[in-house]
C-alpha cells in the first residue's frame, strides 16, 4: 500500500490532495457529498480584512473545457471566518489552508498576523487574483512588488506561508525566485489566467467585470509547464494546481514538480472528483510500485 502522506513545509498532509481556494467555500457544501476528512487539506475561500460583497452577476462564463469567473473575492471577512468557520472545519481530520488577499502591503501584513494566531495550519497568500482592480494583480506580476509584500507578510507569519502565484506573467521563474528569496515557505500555482468571453447576441462581455479568471482542464498544460519551471527555479515546496481532473493528472502534476496539489473547477462538473482522484492515485501508485508520493515529486526525466 502506497504511503500517501506528504510533509508540506512541516505540516503533514494525510494525502497530497487539497481543494483550491474559492471553489470550495468553507467546506460545508461539498461535505454533503463526501467526508471532508478524506482530504489532505482544505483551501478556503479567499479572505480579506473586512467583508467583501464581490462583483454583480454574471460572475461565470463557460469556455472550452474551462470557465471564467469574476467572483471578486466575496467573503465575510477574516474575523467572521475565524469565529464562524474554523470550528466547523476543525470537526474534520484535515488541514486548514487559509487564503488571504489584500489591497496594500499593510493589509497583507495585518491579515497574516491575524490568521497566524487563529487555528489554521497553513497560510496561502493570494498575490495573484486578477479580479480586484487595485492591488491583487499588480503584486503578483512584478518581482519587486512580490519581494516587498512577501517580506512584510513573512515577518508577521507564525505559520508556514504559501505564496500563490499568478500565471499572467512573462517569466514565472523570476516571480517564484522573488517570492522564495523574500521568505516564502512554499509556493502555490497557478491562479487563473486572464480571459474574456462576449455574448454575441447582446454584444456585451458575459462577465459583469468584463474579464475574468480562466480555470479548469483547459489550463492544465500551462499549469504543468509553470510548475516545472518553478521547480527548477526554487527549492521550497510547491502546491500545484490548475485544471486537475483525475488521479493521473495528479501524478503528472507531481512529476512536474509539485509536492501536493489542489483541485478546484473540476468539482463543478463532479462534486466527488477529489475522492475519486484520491482512489485513482492510490491505485496507480500501487500498480506502479510507487511507495510514497515524494518518489514522484519532480521526478520527470528530461533530456
Amino acid at each position: 500500500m502506497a504511503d500517501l502522506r506528504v510533509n508540506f513545509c512541516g505540516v503533514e498532509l494525510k494525502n497530497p490532495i487539497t481543494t483550491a481556494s474559492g471553489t470550495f467555500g468553507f467546506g460545508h457544501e461539498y461535505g454533503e457529498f463526501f467526508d471532508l476528512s478524506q482530504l489532505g487539506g482544505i483551501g478556503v475561500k479567499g479572505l480579506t480584512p473586512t467583508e467583501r460583497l464581490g462583483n454583480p452577476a454574471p460572475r461565470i462564463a463557460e469556455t472550452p473545457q474551462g470557465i471564467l469567473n469574476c467572483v471578486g473575492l466575496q467573503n465575510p471577512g477574516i474575523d467572521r471566518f475565524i469565529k464562524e468557520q474554523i470550528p466547523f472545519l476543525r470537526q474534520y481530520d484535515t488541514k486548514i489552508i487559509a487564503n488571504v488577499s489584500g489591497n496594500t502591503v499593510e493589509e497583507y501584513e495585518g491579515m497574516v498576523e491575524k490568521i497566524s494566531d487563529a487555528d489554521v495550519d497553513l497560510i496561502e497568500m493570494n498575490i495573484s487574483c486578477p479580479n480586484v482592480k487595485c492591488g491583487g494583480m499588480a503584486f503578483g506580476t512584478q518581482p519587486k512588488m512580490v519581494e516587498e509584500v512577501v517580506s512584510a507578510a513573512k515577518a508577521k507569519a507564525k505559520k508556514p506561508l504559501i505564496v500563490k502565484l499568478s500565471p499572467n506573467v512573462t517569466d514565472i521563474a523570476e516571480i517564484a525566485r522573488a517570492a522564495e528569496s523574500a521568505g516564502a515557505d512554499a509556493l502555490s500555482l497557478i491562479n487563473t489566467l486572464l480571459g474574456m468571453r462576449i455574448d454575441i447576441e447582446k454584444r456585451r462581455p458575459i462577465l459583469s467585470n468584463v474579464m475574468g479568471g480562466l480555470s479548469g482542464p483547459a489550463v492544465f498544460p500551462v499549469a504543468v509547464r509553470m510548475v516545472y519551471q518553478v521547480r527548477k527555479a526554487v527549492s521550497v515546496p510547491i502546491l500545484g494546481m490548475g485544471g486537475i481532473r483525475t488521479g493521473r493528472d495528479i501524478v503528472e502534476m507531481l512529476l512536474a514538480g509539485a509536492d501536493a496539489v489542489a483541485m478546484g473547477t473540476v468539482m463543478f462538473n463532479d462534486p466527488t472528483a477529489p475522492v475519486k482522484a484520491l482512489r485513482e492515485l492510490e491505485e496507480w501508485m500501487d500498480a506502479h510500485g510507487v511507495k510514497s508520493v515524494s518518489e514522484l515529486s519532480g521526478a520527470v526525466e528530461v533530456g
Partner: protein
Amino acid sequence: MSVQEICRVAENTQLGDGLFLMVLHAPKTTELAQCGQFVHIACGEGHLLRRPISICAWKAPELRIVFQVKGEGTKWLSERRTGDELDVLGPLGHGFDVGALGSAPVFIGGGIGVPPMLGCVREAVKQGAKPAAILGFRNKGAVILEGDFRDECETFVTTDDGSYARHGFVTDVLKEQIASASGVAACGPKPMLKAIAAIAKQAGVPCQVSMEERMGCGIGACLVCACALKAKDGETRYGHVCKDGPVFNAEEVEW
C-alpha cells in the same frame, strides 16, 4: 439534502418548438424533491459546467423536467434517448414555501418558467389550498403543460401575440385575480417577475419569485450565482441563486 444520481432517461419527448419533456428514473432525487427546487445536469464530455433545470413535477421514482433548447448544453440534452444515463445533482436550492402563500395562492409561469409551477400547484392542492394558475406564452406554438394545470386547478392562459387563448400578459390576468389571492408565486423572465412583485406588494400579499443566474457548483460553494438582494441597512448584498434561492421573497430582491 442533495445527492448525485445516475438517472436513466425514461422518456424524452419534443413538446413544441425547441421544447422537450424529459422523464428521468431518479429514485433518490424524487424522494427528496420539493417544488421550486432544481437539478444540475451534466451535459456530456463537451461541457464542463452542468446545466440547472427546474423540477417540474415528480412521482417517485420518476422525475419530470421540461427544458428549452437554448445553446449547446440543452441541445445535447434534447438528443438523449430513452435508456441513456444522465449524471444529475439534486434536488438543489431553496424552493417555494407554498404553505406561506395562504389558502388561495396564485401560481404564475412565463414561458419556460411555467414547468416548475406545476409542482407548486400540486403541492398547494395537497396542502388543501385552492390554487389558481396563470400561464403566459409567446405564442400558440410555445404553449406547454396546459392540460396538466387544468387537471389541478383553475388555469388562465395568455399569449403575447393572441395566437391562442387570451391576448396579453400574465400581469393583465393577475391584476384581475389579485383581489381574491392570498399569495403569489412566479417563475419567468425578470421583467415579468418584477411587475408581478409590484402588483403583489400593492395588494399586500406575499410574493415568492424564482430567479435565474449562471451557475458553477450549483450547491453554494463557488459564489458565482449572485443575486442582488436588499440588506436590512438598505445596502445591496448578494444571495446565491443555487442555495439561498432560486426562490426568494420578492420583497428581498433588488430589482
